[in-house]
């Protein structure tokens, strides 16, 4: 420490001296307060010629100026590699400011100009021994950025050296370099793993997070290397910086799913069974919910969602909701995650559903996701409120949002059957809207609702029957179990009495809806919606018995056909197809009605000469179908004289099957399967991924081999965890020792305390107790570590020179090691011991 300080002081002194010289020389320029950077930034390209000359001048100010110009060129994407030799000369400049700019240039250019960078490789190597950790780290970053496989060995040596650096900042750079070397040349995998074992032993939370990340990058399958570090990582979690916390949590989630037994939720037979290491992880991660960084909060929520036993899941509700109020952007990303959680655990958010109400100034995507979430939270209790909300959202200025809201109303109707009439009223109100988009969406939803109810008149009573039956059954069987069979049979034998009243009231409503839709056919302009109405009219236009103007057909139906026939030529193809179907159905219902038959013939004839292939085909098919079913159809057709040839040929040459009316009715009316309400698909994509956020583009995302990554990232639970003894490490010992007064001093004390017994845990590893025997390879690896641990004492001695820098942090982590224990008496001690620590920090 003293040595570094002395060095630093002397360096600072020289630096300051130079600075003063410069400032005196350039005093006037300095006094003008603007830095004049923008003039450099926007300078003309022809001035760039001077840069080389400036770089070779003896004045640092000139050189600085040149470097700034170079960086300005870089940001304008101009080629700058020609200056490389001139720049590299300055890499050893005593002026720190200049050197930093040189390094920025090198960091940019070295990867793209590896050959040039090779020439100066010695300089970088020399800089690895620079007294400033900043320069050491930068040199390592440049070295590892040179992408030439031939120098990989040199870089590897540099990384190995830096991995034992006293400064955690340099060690962090080393961990990052490990990833880059691995990307460059995977042949060095074993050496890198070796370095990783050093890095993972790191005590400073500053570099620990990056070390875990590096391990995850170069050897995602080697989770076994984390056994001995698992508990320490958990305890260090609060002290790692936010970015590290995200990475470590991600890896620990994976570790837990692979190595720990799945928690068994509490049931009647047994108590809840959660592994104590899992408990430790969750206990250490939970305070991070209070982190300001949204990515950390999500990472913790993710850990709880995928690991915690069900009772603990309730903890993720409030933090996820808090993310929504952080910023618009965070809200946008957090909502799809929240949707996944809400779909699987709606109870978490039901009480706070008003936090998810749509605001007019939300972005479109946010509005749509909010509607989905609200829908996922819909229950019998809150459906009234939600229905009112959705009715409001239907007026939204975004078409897609209005559409979603109207479809949501339809979903409420099917989710909460008792609300059906309300939903229908709301949708019927929308039919009268002046907005095209609202009308057409409402029609589409109405169609599926009506169809759902009408098409299943047989199933509707049965469902109501089934529920009433089951409730009755439950009631009865609970009291007199022996009666069960006889009662159920008697009930099913006579279902009518208590279902008919219900079903008629439900069936009645949809028909009047179709009637209203039919009357408003002129206002419904959206082709899809028009087609829907036409189909509904045709499908449900039949009325049994008499009393209507045209017997057998509802009063409103024929007029729809009349209007449609008149506008046939201007309709979209999808509408034309439905007009044809409607015509066919109506004349099938009343084959004797002359006007209707004429109308139908008119339409069919128009369709015959239609542009659209499908329309012509449909017309032909329907005509052929109806030949035998509708009396007078043929003859009247002949009268018109249109298509006479075809008809004659067709008629004469028709030896084949002519269907009877009943048969045609069957063909046209029956077997229309009901629309299946879109059930939200359980999302398999894990939380915290881009593909979940970009739901609409998810298909494309899944084209890549992301699926594999997903599996790697979030594996299934193992049946049985591995032996927890593998996670025992010498780090566990100081827990007991921590309560001693010595703990506050520094990590030196800790390491010296347990140094004498490094082998304490290793025998357990060698002879695993219990059923789950690790594979041979694991034994072998751990044995390796066992031998390594003996030499560890030496390396740790070396490391301790630098530990002082991080001592305050270590102290913090030791504080938190205790926080996880939740034991009151120890905490009290901690408070007492806490006071000496700041004074210690001050003496540093």
């Amino acid at each position, binding site marked *: 420490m003293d040595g570094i300080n002395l060095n*630093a002081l002397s360096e600072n002194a020289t630096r300051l001296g130079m600075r003063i010289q410069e400032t005196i020389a350039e005093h006037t320029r300095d006094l003008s307060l603007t830095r004049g950077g923008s003039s450099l930034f926007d300078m003309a390209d022809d001035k760039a010629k001077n840069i080389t000359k400036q770089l070779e001048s003896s004045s640092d100010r000139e050189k600085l100026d040149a470097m700034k110009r170079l960086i300005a060129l870089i940001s304008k994407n101009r080629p700058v590699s020609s200056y490389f030799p001139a720049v590299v000369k300055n890499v050893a400049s005593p002026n720190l400011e200049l050197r930093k700019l040189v390094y920025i240039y090198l960091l940019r250019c070295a990867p793209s100009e590896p050959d040039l960078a090779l020439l100066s490789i010695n300089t970088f190597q020399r800089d690895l021994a620079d007294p400033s950790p900043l320069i050491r780290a930068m040199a390592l*970053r440049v070295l590892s950025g040179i992408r030439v496989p031939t120098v990989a060995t040199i870089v590897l040596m540099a990384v190995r050296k830096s991995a034992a650096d006293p400064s955690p900042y340099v060690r962090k750079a080393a961990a990052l370099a490990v990833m880059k070397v691995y990307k460059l040349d995977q042949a060095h995998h074993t050496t890198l793993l070796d370095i990783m074992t050093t890095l993972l032993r790191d005590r400073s939370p500053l570099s620990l997070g990056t070390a875990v990340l590096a391990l995850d990058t170069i050897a995602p399958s080697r989770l076994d290397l984390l056994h001995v570090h698992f508990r320490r990582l958990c305890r260090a979690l609060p002290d790692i910086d936010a970015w590290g916390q*995200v990475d470590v949590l991600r890896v620990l989630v994976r570790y837990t799913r692979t190595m720990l037994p799945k928690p068994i939720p509490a049931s009647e037979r047994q108590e809840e069974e959660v592994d104590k290491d899992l408990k430790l992880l969750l206990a250490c991660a939970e305070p991070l919910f209070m982190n300001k960084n949204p990515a950390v909060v999500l990472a913790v929520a993710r850990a709880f969602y995928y690991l915690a036993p069900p009772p603990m899941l309730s903890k993720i509700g409030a933090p996820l909701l808090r993310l929504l109020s952080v910023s*618009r952007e965070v809200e946008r990303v957090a909502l799809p995650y929240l949707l996944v959680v809400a779909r699987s655990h709606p109870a978490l958010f039901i009480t706070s559903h008003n936090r998810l109400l749509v605001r007019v100034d939300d972005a*479109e995507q946010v509005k749509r996701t909010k509607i989905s979430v609200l829908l996922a939270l819909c229950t019998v209790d809150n459906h009234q409120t939600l229905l009112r909300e959705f009715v409001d959202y239907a007026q939204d*200025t975004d078409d897609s949002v209005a559409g979603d809201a109207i479809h949501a109303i339809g979903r409420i109707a099917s989710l909460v059957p008792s609300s059906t009439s309300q939903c229908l009223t709301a949708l019927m109100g929308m039919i009268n809207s002046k907005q095209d988009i609202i009308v057409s969406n409402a029609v589409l939803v109405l169609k599926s609702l009506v169809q759902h109810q009408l098409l299943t008149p047989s199933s509707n009573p049965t469902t109501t029957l089934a529920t009433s039956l089951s409730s009755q059954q439950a009631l009865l069987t609970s009291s007199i179990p022996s009666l069960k069979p006889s009662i159920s049979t008697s009930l099913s034998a006579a279902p009518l009495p208590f279902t008919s009243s219900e079903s008629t009231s439900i069936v009645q409503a949809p028909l009047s809806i179709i009637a209203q839709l039919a009357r408003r056919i002129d206002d419904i302009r959206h082709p899809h919606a028009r087609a829907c109405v036409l189909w509904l009219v045709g499908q449900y236009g039949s009325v049994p018995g008499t009393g209507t103007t045209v017997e057998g057909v509802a009063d409103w139906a024929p007029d729809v056909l009349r209007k449609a026939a008149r506008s046939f030529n201007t309709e979209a193809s999808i509408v034309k197809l439905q007009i044809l179907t409607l015509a066919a159905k109506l004349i099938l219902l009343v084959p004797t009605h002359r006007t209707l038959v004429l109308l139908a013939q008119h339409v069919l004839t128009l369709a015959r000469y239609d542009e659209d292939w499908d329309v012509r085909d449909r017309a032909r098919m329907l005509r052929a179908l109806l030949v035998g079913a509708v009396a007078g159809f043929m003859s009247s057709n002949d009268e018109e004289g249109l298509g006479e040839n075809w008809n004659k040929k067709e008629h004469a040459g028709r030896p084949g099957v002519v269907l009877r009316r009943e048969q045609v009715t069957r063909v046209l009316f029956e077997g229309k399967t009901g629309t299946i309400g879109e059930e939200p698909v359980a999302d398999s994509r894990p939380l915290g991924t*881009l593909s979940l956020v970009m739901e609409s583009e998810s298909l494309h995302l899944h084209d890549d081999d992301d699926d594999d990554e997903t599996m790697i*990232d979030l594996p299934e639970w193992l049946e049985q965890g591995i032996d927890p003894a593998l996670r025992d490490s010498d780090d566990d010992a100081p827990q007991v020792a921590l309560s001693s007064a010595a703990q506050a001093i520094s990590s030196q004390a800790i390491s010296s305390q347990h140094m004498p017994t490094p082998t304490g845990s290793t025998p357990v590893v060698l002879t695993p107790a219990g059923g789950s025997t690790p594979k041979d390879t694991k034994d072998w690896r751990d044995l390796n570590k066992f031998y390594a641990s003996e030499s560890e004492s030496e390396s740790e001695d070396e490391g301790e020179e630098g530990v002082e820098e991080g001592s305050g942090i270590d102290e913090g982590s030791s504080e938190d090691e205790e926080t996880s224990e939740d034991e009151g008496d120890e905490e009290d001690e901690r408070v007492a011991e806490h006071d000496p620590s700041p004074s210690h920090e001050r003496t540093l």
Partner: protein
Amino acid sequence: MAIDGLIILDPAGRPIIQSSYTTYPAAYPLLHIEALNNALAKAPREGSVDPVIYVGELSCSSACCHVEVGGMRFVATISGDVDPLIAFAFLDAFIEILHDYFGIVSVVTLKDNFDIVYQLLEETLDSSGHPLTTSPNALSDIVLSPSLISKLLASVSPAAPGVPSARQGGYGAFTSPIPWRKAGVRHNHNEILFDVVEEMRGIVGKNGTTLVSNVFGKIESNAKLSGTPDLTLTFTNPNVMTECAFHPCVRLQKWTRDNALSFVPPEGRFVLAEYQYRPPQSALISNVPIPLSLKANMDMGEFGGTFALTLTSRLIKVMENLELIFYLGEDATSAQCTLSSAGSSVGSVGSADGSWSFNSRTKVCFAATLRWEILNMRSSGSWILRGSWTSKVKAPRPAHAFQIRFEIPSYSFSSLKVDQLRLSSETYKMYKGVRMRSKGSIEWRW
């Protein structure tokens, strides 16, 4: 599988500053810039652009996450199945650092100090795509700030070792045992200031009932303290705070146990805590009363409509900079309004009534908006805006809600009160200050 890089675009959509994309094809950043500019051009109204834009042209899945600051766009491009929240958290941290260094983040300041921005970029984001050092205190040791003070110190101070400024520069870096605090800070005048800023966000339904209203608070601090000050901040009513989030310096365990904030603050500005206000009378989070009321008579006709809006304050305090925004839709062409105020005890005239403006559809903002501003809204009386607008379509489609924003100086919804601030581990006296400020953003549907 990480943040590929960061691009800063000027208001015209051209890149000003760009991190190195050396390991990517040359077109890579350009594709992202283009995707973003396209999306911005297509946006129907301000703020409706999706903050995450998927870029599909590439072989790997990639997206750009963007935030608007001072007219510029800060873009973080990500590739692989990364959590976009990391990108936004990083952008936030980076923008905060820029604020710290330059005070104002604008095209001018960034161009003036582009070399410093590049240094910061290099230090905060490694080329592997992982954030490095983002704590402003740690960075200030690595990258010198351009502030006037450091300049003056550099030109004036003699070469006497031990002067605080001498500690600046690369060698002072990483010597602090606390990652978020610089080592060896000395001030002649020690002070710490707290700003409690509360924001109400609410929605009022068509019938005037409050559907939801929540208050979110933030404690912003500005610390200028010497040495390693260990502070304990206590409140008389800490139970009004719920769902808290803290700066990393806060000892979480102390908070859960004693409801006291115990921390060693970083130097300079930072957000100490964020919370949600929990009204004390009930266990559940219920709605906080909204301090104003709006009566809206809307009449929608063909090719336009008329409206009469009456705003009344329910608060004894004066509300400032009240602003009511009404999106008239893409098709609105003009609006005409008259302002008046009724029952006001003070005979207010002229500008006190407020003002209104109409912005027709522009390239930036597709929806025409009507803006009504009242600079000072006193407790009594009501403010009325009557008017009409025209539209070029038969059935106009305005937003069915008004956005109301306001500020209330020296007021807090939660009446959170600081009990005391204790300093241990240092002996000097410090100046302590607490200020309250509130603002609101209410959506009023009609």
